[in-house]
């Protein structure tokens, strides 16, 4: 039987590393003279992984994921923990809609990712960390981020779907084997 938690942890760790790798390859241009992108693979992956969990589990998994990312990869662990936890918990409310169609799943994760960026932007603006205007930020940073992560969400949905099917098949086989073993024991 597949230990989903373990695989999910490895999967999210890989995504977090990919985020860092992309950040080092295509760093944000803070002069805002050219377009930049910020990778949210780990955030989107986390939402997709925890979406089917119970509400408290969702929140705790997402919080832990955000905390680890914030501690090991960036330095804003508290903000990351709260945002991951908030959106991880919130995505559960769209569980039924997400199960119906992959497009809905994509749309919800995409919107949450955008909302996450908006919160970060306006939060930074309110606390005085950012002085640039919304339009400039949207054009120079967010536009390419949305395009890149939009494509990435599709890929992530595909990977997670394939993994879930594989895990389900493995579970069925495992249960069948268990059943057979039980039958053999009873016969003896």
């Amino acid at each position, binding site marked *: 039987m597949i230990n989903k*938690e373990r695989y999910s942890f490895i999967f999210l760790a890989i995504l977090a*590393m990919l985020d*860092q*790798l992309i950040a*080092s*390859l295509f760093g944000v241009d803070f002069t805002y003279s050219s377009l930049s992108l910020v990778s949210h693979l780990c955030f989107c992956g986390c939402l997709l992984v925890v979406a089917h969990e119970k509400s*408290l*589990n969702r929140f*705790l*998994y997402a*919080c*832990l994921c955000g*905390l*680890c990312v*914030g*501690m*090991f*990869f960036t330095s804003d*662990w*508290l903000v990351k*923990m709260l945002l991951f936890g908030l959106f991880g918990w919130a995505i559960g409310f769209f569980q039924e809609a997400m199960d119906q169609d992959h497009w809905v799943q994509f749309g919800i994760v995409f919107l949450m990712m955008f909302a996450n960026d908006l919160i970060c932007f306006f939060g930074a603006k309110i606390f005085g960390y950012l002085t640039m205007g919304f339009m400039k930020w949207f054009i120079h940073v967010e536009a390419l981020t949305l395009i890149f992560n939009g494509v990435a969400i599709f890929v992530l949905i595909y990977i997670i779907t394939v993994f879930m099917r594989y895990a389900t098949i493995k579970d069925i086989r495992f249960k069948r084997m268990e059943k057979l073993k039980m039958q053999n024991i009873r016969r003896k």
Partner: protein
Amino acid sequence: MRKFTRIQKRLLTTIVVLCILACAMFGLRQNSITNIGYSAWTYLKYGLIQYPLSSIGNAVNDFANLWHVYDDNEYLSKQLAEQKNYQTAYEDERNKNKQLEGLLEMKGGLSDAKTISVSVLERSSDSWLQTVTISAGKKQGVEKNMLVATSDGAIGLVDSVQTLTSTVQLLTSQHLSNDIAIKMSLEDGTSVEGVLQSYDTEKKAYRVSLFDNDAIVTKGQKVATSGKGGNYPSGILIGEVKDVSLNDDSIISTVYVSPVSNMKSFDYCLVIGKEESK
């Protein structure tokens, strides 16, 4: 009170522990007295995560830059090849210039002779030491048996003349159509005359017969034209004495004269004739 499941308890414990750890790190960073823990944590974070990731990023960047390096290399290779061409062209022009300067100097010293400056039009590889074609003929006043010289000295005789070109028989040719009268100035102030008859391919020197077999000839003596019996003036350098052959009675039988130094390769030369042959 709601009871937590096992997994929830684990998650909560992990989160609380990590939060305490993160707060402690944050506190240590704020504390100016001790920042050892924070430094160790930062070092671990950098060494285990950020450094490997940035290294991978740099490697990927370097690989991407390989294409630029390839383009640069191509461009520089072309530049280098062109540079080599320029260098060769420069060397060639410098050699030509040197030859022309020599010829001009020589022309200045031959005020009583008729001189025609010419360039070499053709020198075929199968008759490299036999003949050359020069860029002057009847129209320019070239006549048969005029002497052809480079800045170093005589190299041949005009063999046949066309309207605008002439064929020169080089002195290194195995069958010279005409002998050349020569003169050697001896150390005692006198001079001895003779005839350049042929070219010895084995010794790579002209074979010269002297009229005075008792003359004392030593290696390195200059041999020049005497101006007698030909359509050219006297005093044009032919070469230097390379070897002397004696017969049984210790009388000079043949003198071997080495050709002038730039005999094998020249681009410009001077056709020299006597003034009265105009």
